[in-house]
């Protein structure tokens, strides 16, 4: 496929009135408390937790109250309290795919006394283009891209 356009990484900055250590802890250790509810791959089951295992190679996953789990990715680099690099491995069908990987990098930068500037970059968005052939192949299947998007949209609209 000819991918003529390469989308820019998504970059966000937010300032929080806590020190970097605290910001890092809340981001990685209390993700269940703030991660948007509508972004869940549990198929509508109530969410129990969102876990980032605190080490390089650690898993990034969510758990349902019935004990089932959905993997989202893993920790590429673990450098508390200043930086964490996560692998977001949800493919064009919003399913975990170990062969698919986009990077989400977080930097926690001290910004005056007791404040932190948190910089986020979600990159490799163009890799979704590389699954275009797979999308084409699965487009008509109920479990395919449109089916996956439909389920995702239904979940997100709840």
């Amino acid at each position, binding site marked *: *496929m*000819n*991918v*003529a*356009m*390469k*989308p820019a990484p*998504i970059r*966000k900055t*937010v*300032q*929080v*009135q*806590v020190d970097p250590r*605290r*910001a890092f802890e*809340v*981001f990685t250790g*209390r993700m269940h*408390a*703030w*991660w*948007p509810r509508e*972004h869940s791959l549990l198929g509508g089951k109530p969410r129990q937790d969102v876990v980032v295992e605190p080490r390089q190679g650690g898993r990034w996953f969510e758990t349902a109250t019935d004990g089932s789990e959905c993997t989202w990715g893993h920790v590429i680099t673990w450098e508390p309290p200043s930086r964490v690099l996560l692998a977001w491995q949800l493919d*064009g069908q919003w399913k975990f795919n170990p062969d698919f990987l986009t990077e989400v990098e977080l930097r926690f930068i001290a910004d005056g006394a007791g404040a932190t500037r*948190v910089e*986020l970059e*979600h990159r490799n*968005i*163009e890799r*979704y*283009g590389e*699954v*275009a*052939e797979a*999308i*084409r192949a699965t*487009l*008509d299947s109920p479990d395919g891209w*449109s089916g996956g*998007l*439909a389920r*995702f*949209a239904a979940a*997100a*609209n709840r």
Partner: protein
Amino acid sequence: MADMTRTLNALADPTRRIVFEKLARRPQAVGELARGLPVSRPAVSQHLAVLKAAGLVTDHAEGTRRVYRIDPAGLGQLRRWLDQFWDRALDAFKTEAEGQGEDE
């Protein structure tokens, strides 16, 4: 999620799915697409307009022809969705980080 709904609706029509699949294989102009389909050229143009509005395809002029290609896997759409998603997520993160006592 309005944008994603539009994507889904755009692909709900079987003819539009075929058009999208053809463009996923390679960029093509309207006339070329219409020759391989049992629908009129104006109908193909209509389908392309819907796909374009949904962010699934883009077009550009090549001489007198207008050539369509898929917006890399609906990436414009996806990127916008992710962009808005991170806005919401970081807002919620900020609220949580600043709402927690240091002694917790």
